[in-house]
């Protein structure tokens, strides 16, 4: 059990634990906050995986924007009596069962792939991942098209969200 593994395990527990809390706590605001924790754990994972840029982006975008958005939405849709009483549906065991089944299936599937237990090779020397990622995202031979489409998507989402959320004229 190397140090990396221990760190991984701890981070993993953090992620999974807070994930569980997200889906089980009654108070929605607490759930959103637990989501923040979980996302943070995922950022740590990215860092371990040496995807530095992604770790930062994770914190900035997911935690800084999306989670905050969630908190705003929760606050905008609160009601007095809303958080009393059960917050899960009455037939919660069906999703639980499903989840377990799928987990089991996925695990079996994962373990059946040959070479899945290999450890990572060392990073190629001299590879600047950030620069390579940037080049890939704007290079016409690489992924400029998805990049541009993603930006169009953002625009559409922006306009759509503004339109949908705007209250109609009274």
């Amino acid at each position, binding site marked *: 059990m190397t140090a990396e593994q221990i760190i991984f395990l701890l981070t993993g527990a953090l992620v999974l634990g807070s994930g569980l809390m997200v889906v089980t706590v009654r108070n929605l605001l607490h759930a959103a906050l637990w989501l923040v924790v979980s996302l943070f754990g995922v950022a740590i994972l990215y860092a371990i995986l040496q995807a530095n840029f992604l770790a930062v982006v994770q914190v900035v975008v997911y935690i800084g924007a999306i989670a905050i958005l969630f908190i705003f939405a929760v606050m905008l*849709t609160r009601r007095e009596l*809303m958080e009393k009483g059960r917050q*899960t*549906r009455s037939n*919660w065991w069906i999703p639980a069962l499903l989840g377990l089944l799928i987990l089991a299936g996925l695990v079996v599937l994962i373990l059946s792939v040959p070479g899945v237990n290999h450890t*990572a090779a060392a990073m190629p020397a001299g590879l600047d991942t950030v620069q*390579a990622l940037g080049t890939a995202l704007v290079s016409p031979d690489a992924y400029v098209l998805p990049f541009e489409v993603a*930006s169009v998507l953002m625009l559409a989402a922006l306009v759509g969200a503004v339109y949908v959320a705007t209250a109609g004229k009274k």
Partner: protein
Amino acid sequence: MSVPLSWYLILAAALFCIGLYGVLSRKNAIAILLGVELMLNAVNVNLVSFWRYLDPAQMAGQAFAVIVFAVAAAEVAVGLALIISVYRRRKTVVADEIDLMKW
């Protein structure tokens, strides 16, 4: 790196299932979106770990993850906008109560 790939993958799978559970069992619509976020993150972990373990020189994994970020953000924005709009109208965010498009 001494962590086998399978650990990351299993972690991602577990996170995915937790998110799935959340989607399927929570009453509040916003809580459902929280579950969706967890699932997206699981996907991202999967992608990035594959990127790292198979061929770090190829930027496809990261690029894909970046796009997933963008899509997740857009989706959350629009979803929450929808939920707020519905809340204004029906004064509820319980998913089961928003069932007009039915038989």
